[in-house]
């Protein structure tokens, strides 16, 4: 069982670090409230949706929920919520309406946001909405109709407290310092903290230092996945731009270019994820690659001129990839990293190339050219080696034999 489920707070008093009281009062005194909905905003894993669930249970409300996995066009919303809002339920149950992730409404959810405003102004039952980000333009629509309540990242101490509690229940051996750095890497996201703890200790029942160090990579791929999903599923360039700005990995690889672009330094860049996944997700990936290609020209200019403001154009091109998808593309998204990842290729590269470079280096020195240039001439040297033994250049018997076999003619 997932510990995030197992240790999900069931009562209001178990929810850490947030203004639960205000949410509670809003629900209880809904008829007297000025605003018709409460918008909880803040980073993921801070308990926004959770609090609605817990309140519904604790106060005996029936929860009507719509989240981003549902289709949310105007008609869909009215279908699901319309009845709930206009009439009491059959047995006179009180209802609580939860609309998750309102900032992730896509333009595919046609008229969705307007419909929501309509629904909340007429609602007879309390409405709670959640969002990660309220600073984007389309959220303006809620400005005068909802009350905002910020959910902050869970504090380090609260996270640590919770992790300790779980550790003692699960009988996990831990060192305080290790647990603390686990809490810190979660970045105030309890869901991440708990699932990391489970991942690292479920089998060993012990939290080790090296385990924590392995975490960075995992956390980051989660974030990348979020952006990929947004680019591939929505057409919200403003939202995507914002998320890319806050991405914790580089957009593009700006390290010193390696000897060849098929072998490079840092695979953990958004560009490599996009390049790998685009042809798997889009049917019309030609346009998307055209954008990638144009963005990459700016990458060249950044490296060439050390003018980093061009990065904003790279970001904009990447955001626009979301616009060039076909209609109705609904394919699973994996977070696979590029095929030309350094690990795979360095191995292949060095296996295949040790001999080639060995030969090329020797010929290069002899003939006043770069080893790279010598490599491109290698097929000719291979043919030449049928008659000429390359001994004065210093090739070994083995190398000459290899060279001779290289080209068939």
């Amino acid at each position, binding site marked *: 069982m997932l510990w995030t489920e197992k240790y999900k707070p069931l009562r209001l008093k178990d929810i850490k670090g947030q203004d639960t009281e205000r949410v509670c009062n809003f629900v209880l005194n809904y008829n007297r409230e000025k605003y018709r909905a409460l918008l909880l905003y803040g980073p993921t894993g801070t308990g926004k949706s959770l609090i609605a669930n817990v309140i519904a249970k604790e106060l005996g409300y029936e929860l009507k929920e719509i989240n981003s996995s549902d289709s949310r066009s105007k008609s869909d919303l009215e279908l699901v919520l319309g009845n709930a809002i206009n009439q009491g339920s059959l047995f006179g149950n009180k209802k609580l309406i939860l609309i998750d992730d309102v900032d992730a409404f896509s333009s595919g959810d046609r008229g969705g946001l307007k419909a929501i405003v309509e629904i909340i102004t007429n609602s007879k039952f309390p409405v709670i909405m959640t969002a990660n980000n309220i600073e984007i333009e389309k959220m303006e629509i809620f400005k005068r109709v909802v009350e905002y309540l910020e959910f902050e990242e869970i504090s380090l101490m609260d996270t640590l407290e919770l992790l300790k509690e779980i550790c003692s229940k699960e009988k996990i051996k831990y060192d305080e310092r290790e647990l603390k750095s686990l809490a810190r890497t979660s970045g105030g996201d309890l869901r991440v903290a708990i699932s990391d703890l489970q991942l690292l200790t479920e089998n060993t029942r012990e939290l080790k230092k090296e385990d924590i160090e392995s975490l960075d990579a995992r956390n980051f791929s989660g974030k990348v996945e979020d952006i990929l999903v947004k680019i591939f599923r929505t057409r919200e360039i403003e939202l995507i731009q914002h998320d890319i700005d806050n991405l914790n990995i580089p957009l593009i690889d700006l390290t010193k*270019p390696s000897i060849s672009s098929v072998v490079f330094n840092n695979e953990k860049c958004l560009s490599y994820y996009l390049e790998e996944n685009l042809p*798997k997700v889009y049917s019309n990936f*030609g346009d998307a690659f055209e954008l990638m290609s144009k963005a990459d020209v700016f990458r060249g200019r950044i490296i060439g001129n*050390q003018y980093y403001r061009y990065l904003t154009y790279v970001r904009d091109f990447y955001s626009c990839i979301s616009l060039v998808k076909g209609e109705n593309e609904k394919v699973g998204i994996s977070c696979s990293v590029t095929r030309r990842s350094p690990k795979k290729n360095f191995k292949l590269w060095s296996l295949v190339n040790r001999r080639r470079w060995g030969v090329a280096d020797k010929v290069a020195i*002899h003939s006043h*050219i770069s080893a790279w240039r010598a490599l491109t001439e290698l097929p000719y040297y291979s043919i030449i080696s049928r008659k*000429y033994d390359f001994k004065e*250049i210093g090739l070994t018997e083995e190398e000459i034999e290899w060279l001779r076999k290289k080209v068939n003619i």
Partner: protein
Amino acid sequence: MLWTEKYRPKTFGDIKGQDKIVERIKAMVENKNIPHLLFSGPAGIGKTSLALVVARELYKGENWRENLLELNASDERGIDVIRNTIKDFARTKALGNVPFKLIYLDESDSLTKEAQHALRRTMENFTNNARFILSCNYASKLIDPIHSRCSVFHFKPLLRKDIENYVKFIAKSEGLKIGEGVIDALYNSTEGDVRRIVNILQSCSALTNNITEEVIYSVVSAARPKEIKMILEETLKGNFISARERLLEVMLQHGLSGLDVIKQIQKELISLKIDDRKKMDMIEVCGEIEFRMVEGSDEFLQLQALLARFSRP
């Protein structure tokens, strides 16, 4: 012996097709006073040869090798290596009666901007003890301060006539029979890159002394990886993902650069069995992508963009 070395020009008079440049440099060498030099132009037209001749003529006799440091910017890892090597070399005085040593830095346009700035300082620091000859394919890739410290010489591609003379000269010394159309075949398949031409000639001579147009083309096509054409066909069938995997493998195994690949794609396009109008579009895309590559972008990504465009129905 490799013919590219055997027939490398040894004197100013041997260097063909760059008469004006040779004339000016010769005058500098005779005065035993040369500034920093920058040679730019495509591969295989005599930049390195001229630099070597300068060293030979400047330090007449045996010492010329000791007084010349040859570096290749695309091979030496990082500007630090270059700087230290140069420092060690330039610390001691030149042997003989020329007051400075020579440093030849080939493919200098492959240095990053930062490295170029470091190089510029190094050039200043050692001006008393050493003169630099930089060579590059594209002078525009070098920063202005380097331009302003060098006398710049733009090398022109050799004329067909010059190449014909050169090939005939080699053929005569090696006892080869040159058939009709051979010169054109060589010229067309190398874009006038003389090093490549000599390598092809020597390859042919390893097979036969009777060199015909057909021999040239069979050598050229044997040397060319076949996979590129298959990758194109795969792409046109719509199998983009497998095509790009294949491309990655080919580039790794044959050590091809993005420009190598795109040049070959351009050559293969014409012989594909598709509508000529589509070929025209593809050539246009090809040119655009090559342009972007030269602008310094990620070669493999650009190639993917190219294939993605091709795979569009």
